[in-house]
């Protein structure tokens, strides 16, 4: 099979759900990149400012909602009522597998944030050493964004390979 034929076969095999998940994944990855980029390139004064942090979190929420709404409007135009169709049994199973990885990452993120908060209260840890205020909050937001990316990636991978039994 030539490369062109392979691309054509792939495009024909892709489902509308995979397209939706791909767009969700791209949107989540962009939001994650936006947040981490802002945090990494922030000045120490910005990092210490709760006003700056609140504005950043508000921006993340607004961008998330705006990107999701725009992508679903575009998808609604290109689909034949496929957005309204309920998930079948296999897709529900794949959905659950995706949420399992989300739960792992969120649990890990919350545990790390709690340990970090305790360490900060005792006067040691990375937030003291590298002077990063609100580090537990950054850890939890990063875990949330990473969990979203992992959820969509796992669903796409499991849906494509069919390897849904674990």
């Amino acid at each position, binding site marked *: 099979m030539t490369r062109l034929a392979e691309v054509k076969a792939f495009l024909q*095999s892709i*489902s509308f*759900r*995979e397209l939706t998940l791909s767009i969700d994944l791209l949107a989540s990855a962009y939001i994650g990149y936006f947040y981490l980029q802002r945090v990494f390139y922030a000045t120490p004064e910005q990092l210490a400012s709760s006003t700056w942090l609140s504005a950043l979190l508000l921006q993340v929420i607004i961008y998330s909602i705006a990107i999701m709404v725009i992508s679903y409007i575009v998808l609604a135009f290109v689909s034949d009522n496929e957005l309204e169709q309920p998930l*079948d*049994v*296999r*897709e529900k199973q794949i959905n659950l597998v995706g949420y399992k990885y989300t739960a792992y990452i969120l649990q890990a993120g919350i545990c790390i944030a709690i340990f970090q908060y305790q360490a900060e209260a005792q006067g040691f840890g990375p937030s003291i050493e590298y002077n990063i205020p609100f580090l537990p909050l950054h850890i939890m937001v990063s875990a949330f964004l990473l969990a979203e990316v992992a959820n969509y990636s796992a669903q796409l991978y499991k*849906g494509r*390979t*069919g*390897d*849904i*039994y674990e």
Partner: protein
Amino acid sequence: MSNGAISNSIRTLRFMNNEMTQKQLAEKIGVTRQTVMAIEANKYSPSLEVAFKIAHVFNLPLEDVFQYQQHE
């Protein structure tokens, strides 16, 4: 779950039924084409309800569509 324990004859049966496409079968049993593809490739074992629906589409008993081989 072990792979390959349940096999099926769906691909053959589709061609014997006026070369029914995966999409047509998927619409009749209320799942997506990707799910039919996964079932045909033995990558996914359908629910009992979906299995009965597939057998009903081909007007055959369940055991003529799906075969179960127990591993030693």
